[in-house]
Protein backbone atom coordinates (compact mmCIF):
# COMPACT_ATOMS: atom_id res chain seq x y z
CA UNK A 1 0.00 0.00 0.00
CA UNK A 2 2.93 2.34 0.57
CA UNK A 3 4.05 4.26 -2.48
CA UNK A 4 7.68 3.79 -3.39
CA UNK A 5 9.32 7.20 -3.66
CA UNK A 6 12.16 7.66 -6.12
CA UNK A 7 14.27 10.16 -4.19
CA UNK A 8 16.55 10.85 -7.15
CA UNK A 9 13.59 12.16 -9.14
CA UNK A 10 12.39 14.51 -6.40
CA UNK A 11 15.92 15.53 -5.39
CA UNK A 12 15.86 19.05 -6.97
CA UNK A 13 12.90 20.38 -4.96
CA UNK A 14 13.91 18.32 -1.92
CA UNK A 15 17.38 19.89 -1.79
CA UNK A 16 15.87 23.36 -2.07
CA UNK A 17 13.37 22.63 0.72
CA UNK A 18 16.11 21.33 3.03
CA UNK A 19 18.23 24.38 2.22
CA UNK A 20 15.25 26.59 3.14
CA UNK A 21 14.96 24.87 6.53
CA UNK A 22 18.71 25.16 7.06
CA UNK A 23 18.67 28.88 6.27
CA UNK A 24 15.87 29.43 8.76
CA UNK A 25 17.75 27.57 11.49
CA UNK A 26 21.05 29.31 10.74
CA UNK A 27 19.31 32.67 10.88
CA UNK A 28 17.77 31.78 14.24
CA UNK A 29 20.94 30.46 15.86
CA UNK A 30 23.82 32.42 14.31
CA UNK A 31 24.66 35.76 15.94
CA UNK A 32 23.14 38.73 14.12
CA UNK A 33 26.29 40.16 12.58
CA UNK A 34 26.90 41.54 9.08
CA UNK A 35 28.96 38.45 8.25
CA UNK A 36 25.93 36.23 8.84
CA UNK A 37 24.21 37.86 5.86
CA UNK A 38 26.98 36.66 3.56
CA UNK A 39 26.90 33.16 5.07
CA UNK A 40 23.14 32.83 4.53
CA UNK A 41 23.47 34.05 0.97
CA UNK A 42 26.19 31.51 0.24
CA UNK A 43 24.15 28.67 1.80
CA UNK A 44 21.21 29.64 -0.40
CA UNK A 45 23.43 29.79 -3.46
CA UNK A 46 24.91 26.38 -2.60
CA UNK A 47 21.41 24.90 -2.25
CA UNK A 48 20.39 26.22 -5.66
CA UNK A 49 23.58 24.95 -7.28
CA UNK A 50 23.25 21.45 -5.76
CA UNK A 51 19.66 21.34 -6.97
CA UNK A 52 20.81 22.43 -10.43
CA UNK A 53 23.40 19.65 -10.27
CA UNK A 54 20.65 17.08 -9.71
CA UNK A 55 18.69 18.44 -12.67
CA UNK A 56 21.79 18.17 -14.87
CA UNK A 57 22.40 14.64 -13.58
CA UNK A 58 18.83 13.66 -14.45
CA UNK A 59 19.20 15.18 -17.90
CA UNK A 60 22.46 13.33 -18.44
CA UNK A 61 20.89 10.09 -17.29
CA UNK A 62 19.13 9.52 -20.59
CA UNK A 63 15.92 10.52 -22.26
CA UNK A 64 13.53 8.19 -20.51
CA UNK A 65 11.10 10.09 -18.29
CA UNK A 66 11.20 9.01 -14.66
CA UNK A 67 8.14 9.28 -12.50
CA UNK A 68 7.20 8.82 -8.89
CA UNK A 69 4.15 9.18 -6.64
CA UNK A 70 2.25 6.89 -8.98
CA UNK A 71 -1.05 5.20 -8.26
CA UNK A 72 -0.19 1.55 -7.54
CA UNK A 73 -1.06 -0.75 -10.48
CA UNK A 74 -3.51 -2.70 -8.31
CA UNK A 75 -5.66 0.41 -7.85
CA UNK A 76 -5.24 2.12 -11.20
CA UNK A 77 -7.14 1.72 -14.41
CA UNK A 78 -4.60 0.04 -16.70
CA UNK A 79 -5.63 2.30 -19.61
CA UNK A 80 -3.64 5.29 -18.34
CA UNK A 81 -0.53 5.73 -16.23
CA UNK A 82 -1.34 7.97 -13.31
CA UNK A 83 1.67 9.63 -11.70
CA UNK A 84 1.85 12.89 -9.80
CA UNK A 85 5.50 13.72 -10.36
CA UNK A 86 7.23 13.15 -13.67
CA UNK A 87 10.73 14.25 -14.68
CA UNK A 88 10.71 14.29 -18.48
CA UNK A 89 12.42 16.76 -20.81
CA UNK A 90 9.71 19.36 -20.37
CA UNK A 91 10.25 19.24 -16.60
CA UNK A 92 14.03 19.32 -16.87
CA UNK A 93 14.10 22.27 -19.29
CA UNK A 94 11.83 24.32 -17.04
CA UNK A 95 13.60 23.27 -13.84
CA UNK A 96 17.00 24.03 -15.33
CA UNK A 97 15.88 27.44 -16.56
CA UNK A 98 14.28 28.31 -13.21
CA UNK A 99 17.39 27.28 -11.29
CA UNK A 100 19.81 29.24 -13.49
CA UNK A 101 17.51 32.25 -13.11
CA UNK A 102 17.47 31.50 -9.37
CA UNK A 103 21.26 31.81 -9.24
CA UNK A 104 21.01 35.28 -10.77
CA UNK A 105 18.20 36.28 -8.40
CA UNK A 106 20.17 35.08 -5.35
CA UNK A 107 23.21 37.08 -6.50
CA UNK A 108 21.03 40.16 -6.95
CA UNK A 109 19.56 39.54 -3.48
CA UNK A 110 23.04 39.59 -1.96
CA UNK A 111 23.49 43.07 -3.41
CA UNK A 112 20.04 44.17 -2.25
CA UNK A 113 20.50 42.83 1.28
CA UNK A 114 23.99 44.31 1.70
CA UNK A 115 22.34 47.63 2.50
CA UNK A 116 20.65 46.21 5.63
CA UNK A 117 17.10 47.03 6.66
CA UNK A 118 15.65 43.82 5.27
CA UNK A 119 15.55 40.69 7.46
CA UNK A 120 18.01 38.36 5.75
CA UNK A 121 16.99 34.92 7.02
CA UNK A 122 13.35 35.43 6.14
CA UNK A 123 14.30 36.75 2.69
CA UNK A 124 16.35 33.72 1.72
CA UNK A 125 13.87 31.30 3.28
CA UNK A 126 11.00 32.77 1.28
CA UNK A 127 13.13 32.91 -1.86
CA UNK A 128 13.98 29.20 -1.54
CA UNK A 129 10.31 28.34 -0.94
CA UNK A 130 9.44 30.07 -4.22
CA UNK A 131 12.14 28.09 -6.00
CA UNK A 132 10.76 24.83 -4.56
CA UNK A 133 7.38 25.66 -6.02
CA UNK A 134 8.79 26.71 -9.39
CA UNK A 135 10.82 23.48 -9.70
CA UNK A 136 7.93 21.28 -8.57
CA UNK A 137 5.36 22.87 -10.85
CA UNK A 138 6.61 21.66 -14.25
CA UNK A 139 6.95 18.16 -12.79
CA UNK A 140 3.39 18.08 -11.47
CA UNK A 141 1.03 15.86 -13.38
CA UNK A 142 -2.10 16.18 -11.30
CA UNK A 143 -4.32 19.18 -10.67
CA UNK A 144 -3.87 19.27 -6.91
CA UNK A 145 -0.09 19.17 -7.11
CA UNK A 146 -0.27 21.85 -9.79
CA UNK A 147 -2.34 24.21 -7.65
CA UNK A 148 -0.25 23.60 -4.53
CA UNK A 149 2.99 24.21 -6.43
CA UNK A 150 1.61 27.36 -8.03
CA UNK A 151 0.60 28.66 -4.62
CA UNK A 152 4.05 27.82 -3.30
CA UNK A 153 5.45 30.06 -6.03
CA UNK A 154 3.00 32.88 -5.27
CA UNK A 155 2.62 33.02 -1.48
CA UNK A 156 6.24 33.80 -0.50
CA UNK A 157 6.40 36.54 -3.14
CA UNK A 158 3.80 38.66 -1.30
CA UNK A 159 5.97 38.59 1.79
CA UNK A 160 9.15 39.22 -0.22
CA UNK A 161 7.51 42.27 -1.79
CA UNK A 162 6.52 43.61 1.62
CA UNK A 163 9.81 42.86 3.39
CA UNK A 164 11.11 46.37 2.62
CA UNK A 165 9.24 47.67 5.63
CA UNK A 166 8.11 51.26 6.21
CA UNK A 167 8.08 51.79 2.44
CA UNK A 168 4.67 52.89 1.19
CA UNK A 169 5.13 51.77 -2.41
CA UNK A 170 6.37 48.39 -1.33
CA UNK A 171 3.40 47.78 0.96
CA UNK A 172 0.98 48.92 -1.73
CA UNK A 173 2.61 46.56 -4.21
CA UNK A 174 2.36 43.67 -1.75
CA UNK A 175 -1.34 44.28 -1.10
CA UNK A 176 -2.09 44.54 -4.83
CA UNK A 177 -0.20 41.37 -5.59
CA UNK A 178 -1.89 39.58 -2.70
CA UNK A 179 -5.41 40.54 -3.72
CA UNK A 180 -4.88 39.77 -7.41
CA UNK A 181 -3.18 36.48 -6.71
CA UNK A 182 -5.75 35.28 -4.20
CA UNK A 183 -8.59 36.12 -6.57
CA UNK A 184 -6.86 34.33 -9.42
CA UNK A 185 -6.31 31.27 -7.24
CA UNK A 186 -9.97 31.22 -6.29
CA UNK A 187 -11.00 31.51 -9.94
CA UNK A 188 -8.62 28.75 -10.95
CA UNK A 189 -9.70 26.44 -8.12
CA UNK A 190 -13.29 26.83 -9.22
CA UNK A 191 -12.30 25.85 -12.75
CA UNK A 192 -10.25 22.93 -11.46
CA UNK A 193 -13.21 21.70 -9.41
CA UNK A 194 -15.44 21.79 -12.49
CA UNK A 195 -12.90 19.82 -14.53
CA UNK A 196 -12.64 17.29 -11.73
CA UNK A 197 -16.39 17.11 -11.50
CA UNK A 198 -16.66 16.18 -15.16
CA UNK A 199 -13.74 13.79 -15.44
CA UNK A 200 -13.72 12.31 -11.94
CA UNK A 201 -9.94 12.38 -11.77
CA UNK A 202 -7.20 14.86 -10.99
CA UNK A 203 -4.45 13.18 -13.01
CA UNK A 204 -3.62 15.07 -16.19
CA UNK A 205 -3.07 11.91 -18.22
CA UNK A 206 -6.49 10.60 -17.27
CA UNK A 207 -8.11 14.00 -17.83
CA UNK A 208 -6.55 14.00 -21.29
CA UNK A 209 -8.01 10.57 -22.02
CA UNK A 210 -11.46 11.61 -20.81
CA UNK A 211 -11.57 14.90 -22.68
CA UNK A 212 -10.40 13.34 -25.93
CA UNK A 213 -13.13 10.73 -25.63
CA UNK A 214 -10.92 7.68 -25.17
CA UNK A 215 -12.25 6.93 -21.71
CA UNK A 216 -15.86 7.23 -20.63
CA UNK A 217 -16.32 10.16 -18.25
CA UNK A 218 -18.07 9.14 -15.03
CA UNK A 219 -19.71 12.54 -14.56
CA UNK A 220 -21.09 13.89 -17.82
CA UNK A 221 -21.17 12.14 -21.14
CA UNK A 222 -19.38 13.90 -23.97
CA UNK A 223 -21.67 14.22 -26.95
CA UNK A 224 -19.49 13.49 -29.99
CA UNK A 225 -16.40 14.82 -28.24
CA UNK A 226 -18.14 18.05 -27.30
CA UNK A 227 -17.84 19.30 -23.75
CA UNK A 228 -21.04 20.20 -21.93
CA UNK A 229 -21.32 23.93 -21.23
CA UNK A 230 -20.05 23.50 -17.69
CA UNK A 231 -16.83 22.05 -19.06
CA UNK A 232 -16.25 25.11 -21.21
CA UNK A 233 -16.69 27.25 -18.11
CA UNK A 234 -14.10 25.10 -16.32
CA UNK A 235 -11.59 25.50 -19.16
CA UNK A 236 -12.10 29.28 -19.31
CA UNK A 237 -11.75 29.69 -15.55
CA UNK A 238 -8.54 27.65 -15.42
CA UNK A 239 -7.07 29.66 -18.30
CA UNK A 240 -8.12 32.90 -16.56
CA UNK A 241 -6.41 31.79 -13.35
CA UNK A 242 -3.13 31.19 -15.14
CA UNK A 243 -3.56 34.41 -17.16
CA UNK A 244 -3.41 36.34 -13.88
CA UNK A 245 -0.12 34.70 -12.97
CA UNK A 246 1.53 35.46 -16.31
CA UNK A 247 0.04 38.99 -16.35
CA UNK A 248 -1.85 38.47 -19.60
CA UNK A 249 -4.49 41.01 -20.66
CA UNK A 250 -7.14 41.54 -19.21
CA UNK A 251 -5.44 40.49 -15.98
CA UNK A 252 -2.32 42.61 -16.42
CA UNK A 253 -3.05 45.77 -14.45
CA UNK A 254 -1.09 44.74 -11.37
CA UNK A 255 2.21 44.32 -13.19
CA UNK A 256 3.68 47.83 -13.29
CA UNK A 257 2.82 48.89 -9.75
CA UNK A 258 3.99 45.63 -8.24
CA UNK A 259 7.28 45.56 -10.19
CA UNK A 260 7.99 49.16 -9.24
CA UNK A 261 7.15 48.77 -5.56
CA UNK A 262 8.94 45.48 -5.02
CA UNK A 263 12.70 45.29 -4.47
CA UNK A 264 14.46 44.84 -7.84
CA UNK A 265 15.43 41.16 -7.25
CA UNK A 266 11.78 40.38 -6.50
CA UNK A 267 10.71 42.16 -9.68
CA UNK A 268 13.22 40.01 -11.58
CA UNK A 269 11.82 36.93 -9.81
CA UNK A 270 8.26 37.87 -10.76
CA UNK A 271 9.11 38.60 -14.37
CA UNK A 272 11.09 35.41 -14.98
CA UNK A 273 10.60 32.62 -12.41
CA UNK A 274 7.01 33.29 -11.46
CA UNK A 275 6.10 33.82 -15.11
CA UNK A 276 7.89 30.64 -16.19
CA UNK A 277 5.96 28.72 -13.53
CA UNK A 278 2.69 30.17 -14.79
CA UNK A 279 3.51 29.18 -18.37
CA UNK A 280 4.59 25.69 -17.31
CA UNK A 281 1.26 25.18 -15.57
CA UNK A 282 -0.71 26.62 -18.47
CA UNK A 283 1.07 24.42 -21.03
CA UNK A 284 0.62 21.34 -18.85
CA UNK A 285 -3.09 21.88 -18.36
CA UNK A 286 -3.81 22.83 -21.96
CA UNK A 287 -1.67 20.25 -23.71
CA UNK A 288 -1.55 17.31 -21.32
CA UNK A 289 -5.11 17.50 -19.99
CA UNK A 290 -7.21 19.45 -22.46
CA UNK A 291 -5.66 18.73 -25.86
CA UNK A 292 -8.85 16.94 -26.83
CA UNK A 293 -10.75 20.19 -26.36
CA UNK A 294 -8.37 22.39 -28.34
CA UNK A 295 -11.29 23.84 -30.28
CA UNK A 296 -12.52 25.45 -27.07
CA UNK A 297 -9.33 27.09 -25.87
CA UNK A 298 -7.33 27.83 -29.04
CA UNK A 299 -9.41 30.91 -29.95
CA UNK A 300 -9.29 32.15 -26.35
CA UNK A 301 -5.50 31.86 -26.23
CA UNK A 302 -5.13 33.51 -29.63
CA UNK A 303 -7.18 36.55 -28.57
CA UNK A 304 -5.40 36.70 -25.20
CA UNK A 305 -2.02 36.64 -26.94
CA UNK A 306 -2.94 39.39 -29.40
CA UNK A 307 -4.41 41.63 -26.68
CA UNK A 308 -1.52 41.01 -24.31
CA UNK A 309 1.24 41.93 -26.72
CA UNK A 310 -0.62 45.01 -27.96
CA UNK A 311 -1.58 46.36 -24.54
CA UNK A 312 1.87 45.69 -23.09
CA UNK A 313 3.65 47.48 -25.91
CA UNK A 314 1.30 50.47 -25.97
CA UNK A 315 1.55 50.96 -22.21
CA UNK A 316 5.34 50.63 -22.32
CA UNK A 317 5.59 53.50 -24.81
CA UNK A 318 4.71 56.11 -22.20
CA UNK A 319 6.84 54.94 -19.29
CA UNK A 320 9.65 57.05 -17.85
CA UNK A 321 10.61 54.72 -15.01
CA UNK A 322 12.99 51.92 -15.97
CA UNK A 323 11.27 49.22 -13.89
CA UNK A 324 7.80 50.16 -15.11
CA UNK A 325 9.00 50.01 -18.69
CA UNK A 326 10.44 46.56 -18.08
CA UNK A 327 7.16 45.54 -16.43
CA UNK A 328 5.05 46.45 -19.47
CA UNK A 329 7.64 45.06 -21.83
CA UNK A 330 7.47 41.76 -19.97
CA UNK A 331 3.68 41.80 -20.37
CA UNK A 332 4.19 42.27 -24.11
CA UNK A 333 6.71 39.43 -24.16
CA UNK A 334 4.12 37.23 -22.40
CA UNK A 335 1.94 37.77 -25.43
CA UNK A 336 4.68 36.55 -27.76
CA UNK A 337 5.16 33.46 -25.59
CA UNK A 338 1.42 32.75 -25.56
CA UNK A 339 1.07 33.06 -29.33
CA UNK A 340 2.46 29.63 -30.36
CA UNK A 341 0.08 27.93 -27.92
CA UNK A 342 -2.76 29.26 -30.06
CA UNK A 343 -1.70 27.15 -33.03
CA UNK A 344 -1.24 24.01 -30.98
CA UNK A 345 -3.79 21.70 -32.48
CA UNK A 346 -4.38 18.34 -30.79
CA UNK A 347 -1.61 16.20 -29.41
CA UNK A 348 0.64 16.88 -32.40
CA UNK A 349 1.50 20.34 -31.06
CA UNK A 350 4.89 19.50 -29.64
CA UNK A 351 6.82 21.80 -31.96
CA UNK A 352 4.61 24.79 -31.29
CA UNK A 353 5.13 24.32 -27.56
CA UNK A 354 8.83 24.10 -28.35
CA UNK A 355 8.63 27.61 -29.85
CA UNK A 356 6.93 28.91 -26.70
CA UNK A 357 9.55 27.32 -24.49
CA UNK A 358 12.43 28.51 -26.66
CA UNK A 359 11.10 32.05 -26.47
CA UNK A 360 10.65 31.74 -22.70
CA UNK A 361 14.21 30.48 -22.17
CA UNK A 362 15.73 33.24 -24.29
CA UNK A 363 13.45 35.86 -22.74
CA UNK A 364 14.55 34.75 -19.26
CA UNK A 365 18.22 35.34 -20.10
CA UNK A 366 17.81 38.76 -21.68
CA UNK A 367 15.28 40.05 -19.15
CA UNK A 368 17.40 38.96 -16.18
CA UNK A 369 20.37 40.75 -17.73
CA UNK A 370 18.35 43.95 -18.00
CA UNK A 371 17.09 43.65 -14.42
CA UNK A 372 20.62 43.01 -13.13
CA UNK A 373 21.87 46.28 -14.64
CA UNK A 374 18.78 48.11 -13.35
CA UNK A 375 19.66 46.73 -9.92
CA UNK A 376 23.18 48.15 -10.27
CA UNK A 377 21.91 51.58 -11.29
CA UNK A 378 19.17 51.60 -8.62
CA UNK A 379 21.87 51.63 -5.95
CA UNK A 380 23.15 55.02 -7.12
CA UNK A 381 19.94 56.79 -8.05
CA UNK A 382 16.77 57.28 -6.10
CA UNK A 383 14.15 57.53 -8.84
CA UNK A 384 15.59 55.04 -11.33
CA UNK A 385 14.13 56.78 -14.37
CA UNK A 386 15.26 56.42 -17.94
CA UNK A 387 17.12 59.74 -17.75
CA UNK A 388 19.35 58.29 -15.03
CA UNK A 389 20.78 55.94 -17.66
CA UNK A 390 22.07 58.80 -19.84
CA UNK A 391 25.70 58.12 -20.67
CA UNK A 392 25.88 54.88 -18.68
CA UNK A 393 28.14 53.35 -21.31
CA UNK A 394 30.80 56.00 -20.62
CA UNK A 395 30.47 55.90 -16.84
CA UNK A 396 30.39 52.11 -16.51
CA UNK A 397 31.22 50.52 -19.85
CA UNK A 398 30.59 46.91 -18.81
CA UNK A 399 27.15 47.53 -17.29
CA UNK A 400 26.14 49.95 -20.02
CA UNK A 401 27.08 47.62 -22.85
CA UNK A 402 25.41 44.67 -21.09
CA UNK A 403 22.15 46.60 -20.76
CA UNK A 404 22.38 47.79 -24.36
CA UNK A 405 22.85 44.21 -25.53
CA UNK A 406 19.91 42.93 -23.47
CA UNK A 407 17.62 45.71 -24.70
CA UNK A 408 18.58 45.06 -28.33
CA UNK A 409 17.93 41.37 -27.72
CA UNK A 410 14.50 42.15 -26.25
CA UNK A 411 13.74 44.32 -29.27
CA UNK A 412 14.96 41.59 -31.61
CA UNK A 413 17.51 43.61 -33.58
CA UNK A 414 20.55 42.03 -35.27
CA UNK A 415 23.38 42.35 -32.75
CA UNK A 416 21.18 40.63 -30.21
CA UNK A 417 20.48 37.59 -32.32
CA UNK A 418 18.94 35.60 -29.47
CA UNK A 419 15.85 37.80 -29.40
CA UNK A 420 15.66 37.77 -33.19
CA UNK A 421 15.80 33.98 -33.38
CA UNK A 422 13.20 33.68 -30.61
CA UNK A 423 10.82 35.84 -32.63
CA UNK A 424 11.60 33.89 -35.81
CA UNK A 425 10.71 30.59 -34.10
CA UNK A 426 7.37 32.01 -33.03
CA UNK A 427 6.64 33.56 -36.45
CA UNK A 428 7.39 30.28 -38.18
CA UNK A 429 5.00 28.36 -35.96
CA UNK A 430 2.27 30.96 -36.39
CA UNK A 431 2.54 31.02 -40.18
CA UNK A 432 2.82 27.25 -40.50
CA UNK A 433 -0.05 26.78 -38.07
CA UNK A 434 -2.29 28.95 -40.21
CA UNK A 435 -2.67 31.85 -37.78
CA UNK A 436 -1.60 34.51 -40.25
CA UNK A 437 -3.53 37.28 -38.52
CA UNK A 438 -1.76 36.60 -35.23
CA UNK A 439 1.60 36.74 -37.01
CA UNK A 440 0.57 40.10 -38.48
CA UNK A 441 -0.43 41.46 -35.04
CA UNK A 442 2.87 40.25 -33.68
CA UNK A 443 4.84 41.90 -36.51
CA UNK A 444 3.14 45.25 -35.85
CA UNK A 445 3.86 44.86 -32.16
CA UNK A 446 7.50 44.08 -32.74
CA UNK A 447 7.77 47.39 -34.58
CA UNK A 448 6.04 49.27 -31.75
CA UNK A 449 8.40 47.58 -29.29
CA UNK A 450 11.44 48.78 -31.24
CA UNK A 451 10.58 52.36 -30.30
CA UNK A 452 10.85 52.17 -26.53
CA UNK A 453 13.78 49.79 -26.49
CA UNK A 454 15.58 52.08 -28.96
CA UNK A 455 14.84 55.19 -26.88
CA UNK A 456 16.29 53.58 -23.79
CA UNK A 457 19.33 52.22 -25.66
CA UNK A 458 19.95 55.64 -27.21
CA UNK A 459 20.05 57.23 -23.73
CA UNK A 460 22.80 54.79 -22.73
CA UNK A 461 25.02 56.16 -25.50
CA UNK A 462 24.00 59.80 -25.16
CA UNK A 463 26.57 62.22 -23.80
CA UNK A 464 26.75 62.26 -20.03
CA UNK A 465 24.40 64.71 -18.33
CA UNK A 466 25.84 68.11 -17.52
CA UNK A 467 26.56 68.31 -13.79
CA UNK A 468 23.31 69.79 -12.55
CA UNK A 469 22.38 70.64 -8.97
CA UNK A 470 22.99 67.03 -8.00
CA UNK A 471 26.39 65.87 -9.29
CA UNK A 472 27.45 62.23 -9.44
CA UNK A 473 25.78 60.55 -6.42
CA UNK A 474 28.37 59.77 -3.81
CA UNK A 475 27.35 56.34 -2.44
CA UNK A 476 28.89 53.98 -4.96
CA UNK A 477 28.85 50.93 -2.75
CA UNK A 478 28.25 48.46 -5.50
CA UNK A 479 28.03 45.00 -4.04
CA UNK A 480 30.42 42.59 -5.74
CA UNK A 481 27.54 40.16 -6.27
CA UNK A 482 25.81 42.24 -8.97
CA UNK A 483 28.59 41.85 -11.51
CA UNK A 484 28.55 38.03 -11.65
CA UNK A 485 24.75 38.23 -11.93
CA UNK A 486 25.02 40.50 -14.97
CA UNK A 487 27.81 38.28 -16.26
CA UNK A 488 25.78 35.07 -16.08
CA UNK A 489 22.66 36.55 -17.67
CA UNK A 490 24.52 38.27 -20.49
CA UNK A 491 26.79 35.28 -21.11
CA UNK A 492 23.74 33.07 -21.56
CA UNK A 493 22.13 35.64 -23.87
CA UNK A 494 25.34 35.86 -25.94
CA UNK A 495 25.57 32.06 -26.04
CA UNK A 496 22.01 31.85 -27.39
CA UNK A 497 22.85 34.55 -29.94
CA UNK A 498 25.84 32.60 -31.20
CA UNK A 499 24.28 29.16 -31.06
CA UNK A 500 20.47 29.42 -31.07
CA UNK A 501 20.30 25.78 -32.14
CA UNK A 502 21.12 24.87 -28.52
CA UNK A 503 17.78 26.19 -27.33
CA UNK A 504 15.88 24.60 -30.16
CA UNK A 505 17.49 21.21 -29.59
CA UNK A 506 16.63 21.29 -25.93
CA UNK A 507 13.08 22.57 -26.24
CA UNK A 508 11.82 21.10 -29.51
CA UNK A 509 12.02 17.50 -28.37
CA UNK A 510 10.38 18.16 -25.08
CA UNK A 511 7.10 16.50 -25.84
CA UNK A 512 5.48 14.83 -22.90
CA UNK A 513 6.11 11.16 -22.35
Amino acid at each position, binding site marked *: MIQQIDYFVIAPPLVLALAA*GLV*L*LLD*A*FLPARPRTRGVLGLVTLAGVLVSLGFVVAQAAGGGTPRSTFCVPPSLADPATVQCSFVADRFTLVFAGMVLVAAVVVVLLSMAELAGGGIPVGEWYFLLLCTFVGAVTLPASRDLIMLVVALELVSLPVFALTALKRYDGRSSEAAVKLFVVSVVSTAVMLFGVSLLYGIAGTVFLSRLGAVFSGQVQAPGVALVQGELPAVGTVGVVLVVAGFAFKIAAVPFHSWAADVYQGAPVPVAALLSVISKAAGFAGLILVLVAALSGQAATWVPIIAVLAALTMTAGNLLALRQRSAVRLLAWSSVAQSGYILAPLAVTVTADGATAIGASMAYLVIYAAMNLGAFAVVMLVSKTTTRNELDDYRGLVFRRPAAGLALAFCLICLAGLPPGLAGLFAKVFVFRELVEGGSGWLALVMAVNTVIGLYYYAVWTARLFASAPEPGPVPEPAPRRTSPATLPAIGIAVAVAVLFSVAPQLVLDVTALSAFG
Partner: protein
Amino acid sequence: MDGYFGSYVLVAALLAIGVAIVAGALLANRLLRPSRPTPDKLTTYECGVDPVGDGWAQSQVRYYVFTYLYVVFAVDAVFLFPWATVFDAPGYGLTTLVEMFVFLGFIALGIVYAWRKRVLTWT
Protein backbone atom coordinates in the same frame (compact mmCIF):
# COMPACT_ATOMS: atom_id res chain seq x y z
CA MET B 1 -39.99 22.27 -11.74
CA ASP B 2 -38.19 18.97 -11.70
CA GLY B 3 -34.67 18.75 -13.00
CA TYR B 4 -31.50 20.23 -11.60
CA PHE B 5 -32.72 23.63 -10.45
CA GLY B 6 -36.06 22.27 -9.26
CA SER B 7 -34.46 20.87 -6.13
CA TYR B 8 -33.55 24.41 -5.12
CA VAL B 9 -37.22 25.42 -4.88
CA LEU B 10 -37.29 23.85 -1.42
CA VAL B 11 -34.34 26.01 -0.36
CA ALA B 12 -36.04 29.13 -1.71
CA ALA B 13 -39.31 28.25 0.08
CA LEU B 14 -37.47 27.69 3.36
CA LEU B 15 -35.69 31.02 2.97
CA ALA B 16 -39.00 32.79 2.34
CA ILE B 17 -40.59 31.17 5.41
CA GLY B 18 -37.62 32.20 7.55
CA VAL B 19 -37.78 35.80 6.39
CA ALA B 20 -41.56 35.85 6.94
CA ILE B 21 -41.24 34.58 10.53
CA VAL B 22 -38.58 37.11 11.55
CA ALA B 23 -40.24 40.02 9.77
CA GLY B 24 -43.66 39.00 11.13
CA ALA B 25 -42.41 38.84 14.71
CA LEU B 26 -40.81 42.28 14.46
CA LEU B 27 -43.89 43.72 12.78
CA ALA B 28 -46.29 42.29 15.38
CA ASN B 29 -44.04 43.64 18.11
CA ARG B 30 -44.07 47.14 16.59
CA LEU B 31 -47.85 47.14 16.14
CA LEU B 32 -48.63 45.95 19.68
CA ARG B 33 -46.11 47.79 21.85
CA PRO B 34 -46.39 51.34 23.19
CA SER B 35 -43.48 53.55 22.14
CA ARG B 36 -42.05 55.71 24.96
CA PRO B 37 -38.31 56.04 24.37
CA THR B 38 -35.93 57.45 26.98
CA PRO B 39 -32.17 57.96 26.44
CA ASP B 40 -31.45 54.96 28.65
CA LYS B 41 -33.69 52.72 26.58
CA LEU B 42 -31.99 53.83 23.36
CA THR B 43 -28.45 52.88 24.41
CA THR B 44 -26.97 49.74 22.91
CA TYR B 45 -27.74 46.71 25.03
CA GLU B 46 -24.54 44.90 25.94
CA CYS B 47 -25.07 42.13 28.52
CA GLY B 48 -26.54 44.61 30.98
CA VAL B 49 -23.26 46.59 31.21
CA ASP B 50 -23.01 50.18 29.98
CA PRO B 51 -21.34 50.14 26.53
CA VAL B 52 -17.76 51.46 26.47
CA GLY B 53 -16.07 53.03 23.47
CA ASP B 54 -17.53 52.84 19.99
CA GLY B 55 -18.08 49.95 17.61
CA TRP B 56 -14.76 50.22 15.78
CA ALA B 57 -12.61 49.12 18.70
CA GLN B 58 -9.23 47.76 17.58
CA SER B 59 -7.77 44.54 18.86
CA GLN B 60 -4.11 44.30 19.72
CA VAL B 61 -2.21 43.45 16.54
CA ARG B 62 0.53 41.49 18.29
CA TYR B 63 -1.83 38.56 18.80
CA TYR B 64 -1.47 37.66 15.12
CA VAL B 65 1.70 35.72 15.90
CA PHE B 66 -0.21 33.43 18.23
CA THR B 67 -2.82 32.92 15.55
CA TYR B 68 -0.07 31.79 13.22
CA LEU B 69 1.31 29.39 15.81
CA TYR B 70 -2.17 28.02 16.33
CA VAL B 71 -2.45 27.40 12.59
CA VAL B 72 0.79 25.41 12.74
CA PHE B 73 -0.77 23.04 15.26
CA ALA B 74 -4.13 22.95 13.51
CA VAL B 75 -2.45 21.82 10.27
CA ASP B 76 -0.63 19.19 12.30
CA ALA B 77 -3.88 17.81 13.59
CA VAL B 78 -5.52 17.62 10.16
CA PHE B 79 -2.84 15.21 9.00
CA LEU B 80 -2.31 13.41 12.30
CA PHE B 81 -5.84 12.11 12.80
CA PRO B 82 -6.21 10.13 9.55
CA TRP B 83 -2.65 8.89 9.94
CA ALA B 84 -3.33 7.65 13.47
CA THR B 85 -6.11 5.40 12.23
CA VAL B 86 -4.00 3.53 9.68
CA PHE B 87 -0.32 3.54 10.65
CA ASP B 88 -0.43 0.16 12.42
CA ALA B 89 -2.73 -1.47 9.86
CA PRO B 90 -1.22 -4.26 7.76
CA GLY B 91 0.63 -2.95 4.73
CA TYR B 92 1.91 0.10 6.52
CA GLY B 93 4.77 -0.02 8.94
CA LEU B 94 7.86 1.63 10.22
CA THR B 95 8.14 3.81 7.08
CA THR B 96 4.73 5.31 7.72
CA LEU B 97 5.64 6.00 11.34
CA VAL B 98 8.94 7.67 10.39
CA GLU B 99 7.38 9.72 7.61
CA MET B 100 4.98 11.37 10.02
CA PHE B 101 7.81 12.29 12.34
CA VAL B 102 9.71 13.83 9.41
CA PHE B 103 6.62 15.93 8.78
CA LEU B 104 6.40 16.86 12.46
CA GLY B 105 10.06 17.82 12.34
CA PHE B 106 9.39 20.26 9.50
CA ILE B 107 6.46 21.74 11.42
CA ALA B 108 8.54 21.98 14.59
CA LEU B 109 11.00 24.11 12.64
CA GLY B 110 8.42 26.89 12.77
CA ILE B 111 8.12 26.61 16.55
CA VAL B 112 11.90 26.59 17.01
CA TYR B 113 12.14 29.66 14.82
CA ALA B 114 9.41 31.47 16.75
CA TRP B 115 11.13 30.57 20.02
CA ARG B 116 14.51 31.90 18.87
CA LYS B 117 12.91 35.11 17.62
CA ARG B 118 11.47 35.62 21.15
CA VAL B 119 7.89 35.35 20.00
CA LEU B 120 6.98 33.08 22.89
CA THR B 121 8.07 35.48 25.64
CA TRP B 122 5.39 37.81 26.83
CA THR B 123 6.70 41.31 27.48
